């Protein structure tokens, strides 16, 4: 159980021969992920950690028709092409790790994916992990152990931080999804939360937000109107961030008064969602909620 990916997920790696693609293919294989094939144009016939490389996605799918997800590591200028290729080949789940993808590219391929019924996670995200053995992402393998807590996050290393806290607090993870740090991303908090609602394994969800945009506020509104809900514990990064400056992530900017940490925290609290001041409070809040 868990959401989006599990041991039935059969994975294609686009950009498998690159430094990042190759390194993380090894890590994902060690975690137990079922990677069947990789694609790098012009590198047909090679193999990376025993995984065969194809020139294009449809050739890979001819040999491995059971492939049902792709993870993309190609450099930003080539991401759009890789995504369209995967969508047109019929893949229904695409995780985009690459950073600095032009926003107008994302805008188009995300809309295209929606017309075609394809789910996109990212760009600029750490990926998805469903412990104990399925990871389409770049998170450190040793921090993600099985349990009943879902994680949805706009951040990478902060997700690992929370996983580390849960591990120390003897809590495990159903699925952790890093949805990405860009202004325009494939899937948002509400859509992920909905999936966790339907997941039998998940009993509570940690939402890791940050400054910029209004995704946290919309989740808070949505949550307060729901009849059947699973508890959320929230954390917001960027409480000390100045207005008008991008804090690393392209999406992390307080602009025209919108997207401040204070507004997000207030909205969560109004909706009855506890917000941790510090990462070490997250496991404590979870335990107190789950023991009710």
């Amino acid at each position, binding site marked *: 159980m868990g959401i989006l990916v599990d041991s039935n997920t059969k994975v294609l790696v686009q950009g498998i021969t690159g430094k990042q693609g190759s*390194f993380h293919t090894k890590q994902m294989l060690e975690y137990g992920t079922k990677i069947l094939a990789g694609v790098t144009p012009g590198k047909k016939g090679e193999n990376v950690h025993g995984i065969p490389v194809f020139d294009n996605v449809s050739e890979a799918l001819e040999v491995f028709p059971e492939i049902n997800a792709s993870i993309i590591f190609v450099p*930003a*200028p080539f991401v759009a092409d890789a995504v369209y290729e995967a969508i047109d080949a019929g893949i229904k789940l695409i995780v985009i790790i690459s950073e*600095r*993808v*032009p*926003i*107008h590219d994302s*805008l*188009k391929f*995300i*809309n*295209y994916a929606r017309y075609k019924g394809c789910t996109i996670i990212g760009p600029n995200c750490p990926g998805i992990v469903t412990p104990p053995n399925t990871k389409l992402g*770049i*998170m*450190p393998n040793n921090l993600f152990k099985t349990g009943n807590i879902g994680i949805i*996050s*706009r*951040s*990478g*290393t*902060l*997700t*690992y*931080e929370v996983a*580390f806290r849960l591990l120390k607090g003897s809590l495990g993870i159903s699925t952790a999804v890093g949805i990405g*740090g860009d*202004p*325009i991303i494939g899937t*948002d908090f509400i859509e992920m939360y909905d999936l966790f609602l339907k997941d039998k394994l998940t009993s509570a969800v940690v939402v*890791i937000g*940050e*400054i910029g*945009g*209004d*995704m946290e506020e*919309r989740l808070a509104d949505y949550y307060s109107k729901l009849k059947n809900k699973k508890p959320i514990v929230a954390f917001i*990064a*960027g*409480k*000390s*961030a*100045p207005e*008008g*400056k*991008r*804090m*690393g*992530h*392209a*999406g*992390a900017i307080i602009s*025209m*008064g*919108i997207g401040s940490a204070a507004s997000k925290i207030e909205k969560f609290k109004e909706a009855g969602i506890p917000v941790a*001041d*510090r*990462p*070490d409070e997250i496991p404590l809040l979870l335990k107190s909620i789950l023991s009710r």
Partner: protein
Amino acid sequence: MKLYEYEARQLFTEFGIPVNKWILARDIREVIEKSSGLSFPLVVKAQVLVGGRGKAGGVKIVRDKDELKSAAEKILQMRIKDEPVDSVIVAEAVDIKKELYLSIILDKSQRAPLILASTEGGVDIEEVAKSDPSKIIRIRVDPFVGVRDYIVRKIENFLKVRNINKILNGLYGVFTKYECELAEINPLAITPDDQLIAIDAKVLVDDSSIFRNTRFKDRKTPEFSYYEEIARKFGFSYVEQEGDIGIIGNGAGLTMTTMDLVQYFGGKPANFLDIGGGANSEIMYNALSILLEQERIKGVFINILGGITRCDEVASGIIKAIKDKGITKPIVVRMIGTNEELGKRMLKEVGIDTFDDMENAAKQIVSLIYNK
């Protein structure tokens, strides 16, 4: 990347959006020479990237040559919120019957361009959105469909104007061709003879598109300070703040949280510096050097969660920076993950405290700096 008004005006003109007649001048001689073809009254506008130039006195209406000279002289010597004014626009003042608002933004929740139009122009649109949202119309544009005639009709009916097609399509053209996050006309003036004219122009271009956008590729970015420029060359995300505790983290969310914790325990973060994933010794050396050189920074808190980043690499970069710079400021390091034990041992040998959790590390740096 935010464009100057004059750059945005040039784009508008290229895409057929009418703007009031204007010239750009970098000194007083140019102001006088170039504005000879314009008819008074004129408006002198400081060209800066920070907002609020009007309130800061950076926009003046002038009625004759003397007024023009003194206003332009004054504005060209100004600093607006620390930004020096290097140039001014001199534009013909427009007779205005009514001011409207028109923009195209990237809408994060709808994942599409969104047209915003309002009958209330010349004011902060966020204020209108709060005080009277019924005065704003929002129309989503499918990026594969573009601005169709029905959208133009809707906007025209809402604004009660009849000739916005060319302007709206021009603005959408700028927005898509130059991969904008925002293309805004505020105000869009209606003249007494019912012409529509853009009298201000604001354009934000997506930074991640610059590599293929030759027009802005080599553009200088005066938004950045000296150290911000250095950090940018190293490929770091770096933002300066007013405090005195230097911050280095890996990953944007973790680095922000590191700053937040310093503030939580009563310290003042001096900066945001994200060294990204997979940093090696050299990257850490460069990052720490930038902070150690700055006198205002009294100590540094380094927070590394090593996945692909190796703690021993981080440690060797830290040690090298301290030795090279010969600076003794308190440094506190929190590191966990790959090769953690080795990294910690290396740092201990040179007398640097290391921590497993960032709360204790944050407390430690705050107490070292302020003797709390």
